[in-house]
């Protein structure tokens, strides 16, 4: 059995008993002596007197001294340790693994101090209270969890390593941190083994999957310290998502930035939240938002392009208790032209008989500088040689099939923002389209409708339309479009559970065009041929503006097609054109990294800092060898190759805490102690000490009451 004090300095309060003792002694000197004649009567009276109950002054002094002693003991936080002690302050040798949550939610500010700083302070406090025979190790719990400090008995090592440390921008992964801790504990010989977890207990960090492998085996003692149990401001809001789109349809060069802002509070709405947009370090515009509780609001900002330079920007909201999620980075490289791939499904040596002849000329009548469309023609055979993501729009002209696996590639292309324009014709295999392209086509191809000889051809049913493509076409042009003659087209039937629109129909009400959104991209089906085989539209004057507008309408900037908006920790994949190319990555902190490439592909994994990562490529390998241990530099011939952004994973912004019960369910065999102060919890754990604070306070209070009652009686 052990008796200890958490704050032994307060025991000095016992010296306070000097006060009542002095007062007692001083009062005694004031006694008077009086000769008296009838002492026997006094004795008699004393025995008879009702006031016998007057308390002895010495008894009162004893009560007062005892009260002061008990109060001092209580404030000194006495702990009575019973049984087999795992008290860290005694001579027993203990091995402790400290799991320190350094995820970005630990950056939450409270009273000008973050959870992380509080956790570090508590951790160092416990380390300094360890006995000389104990050893400790530190594991960081942000994803991926890692060992920060291996086994050591030197308390200063932790201090040196942690003193200027900061929380990361990563999410929490307590499960894997515990796994690493268990592995560490297997290496040591100490009998007493403990695991401390200093965390804000955000639920997202306690993934059941990670615990599944340790649920049944761990019977260790865990001390889970909740560092968020202090009065704090709330994390009000977060920028959830940003999306950039280049407008091609209008002649003005405009970039649209879509910002989605979330209110993280479950119950309180936010009013007048300022959202600002910054481009290349300059504030562009500001809006205020009213967001209901537990919901998100989307706001679109339009930025006019001055040139074709890349845009690096961020969307920001006002500061609250957690700053990491108040900013979201984006970058965009505007396209001067719309790169379009025309896949000719019916090529011909006679040029004008090729499927794409009229299309190509319509898209780029003289130079691409006029239409801003840069078409590239490819045969079906050549199709697989193209990187689909080099194009904004792919036009499949009368193809009968696709290279193996390209259905999925096309689907990927559309999902990431690409546009597919499908024109039909005599080479189309409806079965192929119906069976293989169901992931991108919302309709079945049913049958070819043909005009019976000498009958009136099919014509487009043109009405004034609000469709972005068609709305500019006014009376005369609309009449001209009506004159186009269609003698064949495919009839279509809607697939189940698909959404699409029919911007144009034939005069027999059959759809002439089907438009659907898939992912970020669009798919447009033109039910007739793009050449003159099934209609004479290509030779109509309205064909040129019509097809150009469709391409411009459906196209997104190339930059938006690349997977370049990453979350912290996600790897960035980059395919270089040539193995002779050397890649450079400039991190948000300005550090230049030369990532290794394998077969012309780079996988860059060090994306733990949120921000914009600039890409550079040099076409020639430099012959100059860099000096050893000197930081890499960008060669003079390095060209910008774009950028990618890394933002925080917003799952960490949720402030929902995991309950004690849930934690116990994750580790049912473990001995778990929950506290907000590890020092106190060390001695209050099961089979450990009992805090006598309450008992001492109660007794001190009882002494005070008794003293008061006795004095009042007097």
């Amino acid at each position: 059995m052990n008796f200890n004090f958490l704050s032994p300095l307060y025991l000095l309060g016992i010296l306070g008993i000097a006060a009542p003792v002095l007062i007692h002694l001083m009062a005694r000197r004031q006694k008077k002596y009086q000769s008296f004649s009838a002492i026997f009567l006094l004795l008699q009276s004393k025995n008879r007197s009702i006031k016998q109950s007057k308390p002895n002054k010495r008894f009162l002094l004893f009560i007062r001294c005892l009260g002061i002693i008990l109060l001092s003991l209580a404030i000194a936080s006495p702990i009575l340790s019973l049984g087999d002690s795992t008290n860290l302050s005694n001579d027993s040798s203990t091995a402790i693994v400290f799991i320190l949550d350094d995820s970005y939610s630990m950056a939450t500010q409270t009273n000008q101090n973050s959870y992380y700083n509080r956790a570090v302070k508590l951790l160092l406090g416990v380390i300094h209270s360890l006995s000389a025979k104990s050893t400790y190790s530190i594991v960081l719990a942000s994803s991926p969890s890692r060992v920060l400090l291996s086994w050591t008995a030197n308390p200063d090592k932790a201090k040196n390593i942690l003193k200027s440390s900061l929380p990361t921008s990563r999410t929490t992964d307590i499960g894997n941190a515990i796994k690493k801790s268990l592995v560490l504990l297997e290496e040591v010989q100490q009998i007493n083994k403990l695991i401390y977890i200093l965390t804000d207990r955000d639920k997202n960090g306690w993934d059941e999957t990670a615990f599944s492998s340790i649920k049944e085996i761990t019977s260790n003692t865990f001390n889970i310290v909740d560092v968020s149990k202090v009065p704090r401001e709330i994390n009000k809001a977060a920028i959830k998502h940003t999306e950039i789109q280049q407008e091609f349809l209008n002649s003005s060069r405009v970039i649209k930035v879509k910002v989605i802002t979330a209110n993280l509070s479950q119950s309180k709405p936010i009013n007048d939240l300022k959202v600002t947009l910054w481009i290349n370090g300059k504030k562009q515009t500001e809006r205020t938002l009213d967001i209901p509780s537990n919901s998100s609001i989307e706001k679109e900002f339009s930025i006019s392009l001055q040139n074709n330079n890349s845009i690096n920007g961020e969307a920001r909201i006002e500061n609250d208790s957690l700053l990491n999620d108040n900013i979201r980075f984006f970058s965009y490289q505007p396209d001067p032209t719309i790169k379009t791939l025309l896949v000719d499904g019916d090529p011909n040596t006679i040029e004008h008989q090729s499927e794409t002849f009229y299309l190509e000329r319509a898209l780029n009548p003289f130079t691409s500088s006029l239409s801003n469309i840069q078409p590239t023609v490819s045969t079906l055979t050549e199709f697989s040689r193209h990187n689909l993501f080099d194009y904004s729009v792919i036009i499949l002209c009368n193809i009968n099939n696709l290279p193996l696996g390209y259905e999925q590639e096309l689907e990927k292309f559309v999902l990431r923002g690409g546009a597919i324009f499908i024109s039909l014709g005599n080479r189309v295999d409806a079965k192929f389209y119906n069976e293989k392209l169901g992931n991108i086509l919302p309709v079945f191809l049913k049958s070819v409708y043909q005009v019976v000889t000498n009958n009136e051809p099919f014509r487009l049913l043109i009405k004034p339309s609000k469709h972005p493509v068609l709305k500019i076409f006014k009376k005369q042009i609309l009449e001209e479009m009506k004159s186009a003659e269609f003698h064949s087209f495919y009839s279509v039937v809607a697939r189940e559970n698909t959404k699409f629109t029919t911007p144009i129909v034939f005069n027999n009400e059959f759809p002439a065009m089907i438009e659907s959104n898939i992912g970020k991209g669009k798919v447009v089906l033109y039910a007739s041929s793009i050449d003159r085989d099934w209609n004479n539209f290509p030779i109509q004057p309205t064909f040129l503006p019509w097809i150009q507008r469709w391409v411009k309408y459906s196209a997104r900037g190339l930059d938006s097609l690349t997977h370049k908006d990453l979350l912290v920790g996600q790897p960035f994949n980059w395919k270089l054109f040539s193995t002779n190319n050397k890649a450079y990555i400039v991190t948000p902190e300005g550090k230049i990294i030369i990532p290794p490439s394998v077969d012309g592909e780079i996988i860059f994994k060090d994306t733990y800092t949120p921000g914009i990562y600039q890409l550079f490529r040099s076409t020639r390998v430099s012959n100059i060898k860099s000096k050893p241990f000197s930081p890499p530099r960008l060669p003079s011939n390095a060209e910008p190759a774009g950028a990618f952004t890394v933002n925080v994973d917003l799952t960490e912004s949720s402030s929902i805490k995991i309950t004690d019960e849930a934690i116990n369910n994750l580790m049912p065999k473990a001995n778990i102690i929950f506290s907000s102060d590890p020092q106190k919890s060390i001695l209050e754990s099961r089979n450990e000490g009992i805090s006598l604070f309450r008992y001492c306070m109660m007794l001190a209070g009882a002494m005070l009451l008794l003293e008061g009652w006795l004095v009042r009686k007097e």
Partner: protein
Amino acid sequence: MKKKALELNLETLSRIASLNIRATKLVEGLLSGHHRSKHTGSSIEFADYKDYSPGDEIKHIDWKMLAKTDKHQIKQFEQSSNLKATILLDASGSMGYESPNLKNNMSKMDYARTLVASLSYLLLKQFDAVGISIFNKTLIRHVPPRSKPSHFKHILHELAVVSPNGITKLEDAIECMVERLPSRGIIILVSDFLTKETGIEKKLKLLVSRGLEVILFHVLDSDEVSFPFKGDVVFESLEDDSSIELDPEDIRETYQRSIQDLIEYYRSHCTKLGIDYKFLQTSTPLEQGLLYYLLQRKNLGKH
């Protein structure tokens, strides 16, 4: 030694003088307008002159007075009284109580002394014989009763020199005194009666049974009656009791009741025994005590 004796004597003399003055003043004040004995008798003591009238004895003519005044005056002589008074004065330690707040009051012993002196003076003025006996646990001093006016000085001297000490043993003192007392007369007992003795009643009864007239003067200091003390006090005994420390506030009420019980005890027993009882507090003017005595004597005079 001689010097000390002289100093003592001087102190004693001053006490005597002051006693004398106090007693005389008191008595004379009381007696103005009160009776003197009208009896003239055949004692050797000259009492007064009277004009000669035929039939008076010529041998009593004061020839010197004739020569001086040319008047025939007859000497009258005092009638010797049969009253013999003995005053018993308690001089035990308890009688030595002096209040810490004396103010204008006398100490208990001085009060008792003055009372005894005054009584003695009064008795002597009335041609009664008076003697005093001073006692504590036993008889300390005894002055037999005399009726000469010059006897007063002896009495004063004894009163002046007495210093209260020792324990009170009233029973023993009375026992001792009984043999010396005349068969007729007055016994005046002056005491505070602060004693644990329980047989005083019997002794008083004894005195009464001897045919003596007993008068009790129960003298207490005001403090002994009201017990006005405050604070933490250690009471030290003036006799042989051990000290006691207490807060007077706690027992004041009970003590006052006890002292009243004591007074009532003596009053009731004296009444039962036919003894005249008078309680005197030092805060009470002494004239009251003497007036009482005079009234008593007046009643006696009627017998």
